C-alpha cells in the first residue's frame, strides 16, 4: 500500500519521525520545567534562555577550548546549571514568601536579559556548530533518509527522561525531594538541608535545559532566539502533562511532538496551533493536567 489516509506513506512516516525528534526536545525541556515546578512552585520562564545558553556553551567549548561535542554534553550543563544555582540562591529564594506570580515575572525578566546579552554579542542570525563525526551521515530507511544524529537525539533523550524519572520516583534522594515538596518543615526537622536541596534541584532542572541545548546545537543553528521560540510550546506541554508530574512531562512531550508532526501532514496550517488548542481544552476539563495530581 503506497498511501495511508490518502497521504503517501513515505511522507507520513517521515513526518512522524520528525515529530518524534521534536518531541524529544519538548520532553527534555518540559522535564526540567516539571522538576522545577514540582519542587519550587515556580514557572521557570528562563528555561528557554538556559537551553540557548547550553547550545552557546557547547559552541564556545568547541571553538575556544577545543572541547568536542562529547565533552560538551557533560560540561555545558554543569556550567549553565551553576548559573542556575546562582539565580536561585540570590534572587528566587527571596520570592518564596510572595505570590508565585512574582517568580514567573522574575524569570521572565531574566530570560529577556540573557537573550538580549547574547543577541547583542552575536546578532540573531545564528552560528554554525558542526556535527560530531561519529554521528554524521545516515541510513536510508526506505521511506526516508534518517540522519544518524537525529536518531541519536531520540535515543539519548529517552534514556535521560527515563533516568530522571527513575531518580525521582525510585531512589532515596528522589524520595527526599518529593517529601520536601509536600512538607518542607518536616523534612528539615529530620536534618535534611532543604534550602540546599532546592537550590541544587533548580540547578539540575537548568542543567537539563542546557543539555537539550547541546543536543540542538548541531541541527538547529546556535542562535540567541532559539529558546524563545520554543519556550511557549514547552509551557503548553508541561501544562497539558501536569505541572509537577515528571511522567506527564515526558509522555506528553513525545506525544505532542508526534501529534504536531501528524498535523503537518494532514492539516499543515494548524500545526502551530494544535498544541495550544489541546492545552486550552485540557485546562478546561482537567486543569491539573493529564497526569497531575493537585
Amino acid at each position, binding site marked *: 500500500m503506497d498511501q495511508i489516509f490518502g497521504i503517501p506513506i513515505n511522507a507520513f512516516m517521515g513526518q512522524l519521525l520528525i515529530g518524534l525528534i521534536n518531541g524529544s526536545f519538548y520532553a527534555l525541556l518540559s522535564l526540567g520545567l516539571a522538576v522545577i515546578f514540582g519542587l519550587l512552585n515556580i514557572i521557570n520562564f528562563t528555561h528557554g534562555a538556559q537551553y540557548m545558553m547550553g547550545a552557546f556553551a557547547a559552541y564556545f567549548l568547541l571553538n575556544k577550548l577545543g572541547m568536542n561535542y562529547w565533552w560538551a554534553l557533560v560540561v555545558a550543563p554543569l556550567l549553565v546549571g551553576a548559573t542556575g544555582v546562582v539565580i536561585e540562591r540570590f534572587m528566587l529564594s527571596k520570592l518564596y514568601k510572595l505570590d508565585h506570580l512574582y517568580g514567573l*515575572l522574575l524569570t521572565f525578566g531574566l530570560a529577556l*536579559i540573557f537573550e*538580549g546579552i547574547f543577541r547583542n554579542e552575536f546578532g540573531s542570525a545564528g552560528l554554525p556548530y558542526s556535527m560530531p563525526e561519529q554521528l554524521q551521515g545516515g541510513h536510508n530507511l526506505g521511506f526516508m533518509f534518517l540522519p544518524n544524529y537525529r536518531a541519536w537525539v531520540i535515543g539519548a533523550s529517552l534514556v535521560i527522561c527515563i533516568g530522571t524519572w527513575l531518580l525521582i520516583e525510585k531512589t532515596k534522594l528522589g524520595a527526599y525531594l518529593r517529601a520536601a515538596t509536600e512538607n518542607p518543615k518536616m523534612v528539615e526537622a529530620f536534618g535534611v538541608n532543604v534550602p540546599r536541596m532546592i537550590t541544587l534541584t533548580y540547578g539540575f532542572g537548568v542543567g537539563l535545559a542546557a543539555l537539550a541545548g547541546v543536543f540542538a546545537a548541531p541541527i538547529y543553528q546556535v542562535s540567541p532566539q532559539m529558546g524563545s521560540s520554543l519556550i*511557549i510550546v514547552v509551557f503548553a506541554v508541561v501544562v497539558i502533562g501536569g505541572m509537577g508530574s515528571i511522567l506527564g512531562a515526558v509522555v506528553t512531550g513525545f506525544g505532542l511532538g508526534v501529534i504536531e508532526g501528524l498535523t503537518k501532514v494532514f492539516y499543515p496550517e494548524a500545526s502551530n496551533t494544535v498544541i495550544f488548542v489541546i492545552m486550552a481544552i485540557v485546562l478546561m476539563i482537567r486543569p491539573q493536567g493529564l497526569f497531575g495530581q493537585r
Partner: protein
Amino acid sequence: MADPAHDPLATRDVEFDAKFFRYGLVAVLAFFLVAPTFIYPVFLMKVLCFALFACAFNLLIGFGGLLSFGHAMFLGMAGYVSAHAAKVWGLPVELAILTGTAAATVLGVAAGLLAIRRQGIYFAMITLALAQMVFFYCLQAPFTGGEDGIQSVPRGKLLGMIDLTNNFAMYYFVLAIFMAGFLLIVRTIHSPFGQVLKAIKENEPRAISLGYRTERYKFLAFVLSAALAGLAGATKAIVFQLASLTDVHWSMSGEVVLMTLLGGMGTLFGPIAGAFVIMAMENYLSNLGAWVTITQGIVFVICVLAFRRGIVGELEALLKRKLTFRQLLFVLFAFRHHKRAKERGGP
C-alpha cells in the same frame, strides 16, 4: 489595605487618595495637552495608546487580581480589524476604531468564558495559550497580511472635517480617546462594581460567602479590560497606519506587564507612568537593538525584587509618609536616645 474602623491613619488614606487623584489628573492632563509642542507628537501618541493598553491591563491585575499573559491578543486583533475596516471597507475613522474595539470585546467574551473559571498560574497559562492561538491565526489568515501586516491604512478625516494626516490633529483625537478610556476605568473602580471587585481580589472566599457571584464580576472586569485594550489597539493601528504581527506576539503581552509593574500595579496613574518610561527608554536605546531587551529584563528583575510598588506606588508611599514626617523624626530621635541610654547603662 487599611481598614478605617481600626486604623486611625486610614481615614487620611481616603482623603489622601482623593487629593492625589485630583492633583494627578490635573498634572497628567496639563502635561499631555502641551507636550506636543516640545515632544514629537507621534511618540506621544504611541505613549498614549500604550498607556491606555496598560491601564486596561491594570484594571484586571491591579484591581481584579488576575494576571493575564495574553493581553496582546486584544491589542493586536483590534488593530487588524480596525485597519481592515478603514482600508478595505472604507469606514470613516471613528467607525473603524469602534469596529476594532467591538472585535476585541467579542474576543474578550470568548476568552473570558474559557479562562475565568481558573485562577493564578493556570489563568495566566490559559490566557497565554489563547493568545498564541490568536497569534498563529493572524500569521496565517489572508486578511492580516502575515509578516507584512496591513499597510497603508488611511487616517481619514474626523467627523468628515478634521484632516487626521496632520499629526497634531491626530494627537488631540488620540488624547481624547485616551482620556475617555481612562476616566471610564476611574469611574468603574469607584463604582459599587469596583468595590466588589476589590473585595474579590482581597479575599474571594469571603466575597462568595457574602453572596456575590464572583465569577460574573471577574468575567465583566475581563471583558471590560479586553475592550479597552482593543480600543488602544484600534487607535494605534490608525495612528501608525499599519497593523502587524508585533502587536499579537507574546512579547507584547510581556511588555504590558512590564509597563504596569514598573508604573505601579493597582494604582491609577501607574500604567501611564510605566508606559511613558518604557517607551522613552525604547526610543532612546532604539539604535542599540538588543539593549532594549536587556534593559527591559533588568527593569523587570529590579521591580520584582526591590521595587514592587512601582513608580507611582513609591511616590504615593513617599507622599503619605510626609504627612507623618514629624512623627517619623520623633520616633527616630526617641529610638536613638533610648539606644544611647542603654549603652550608658541606663534602665
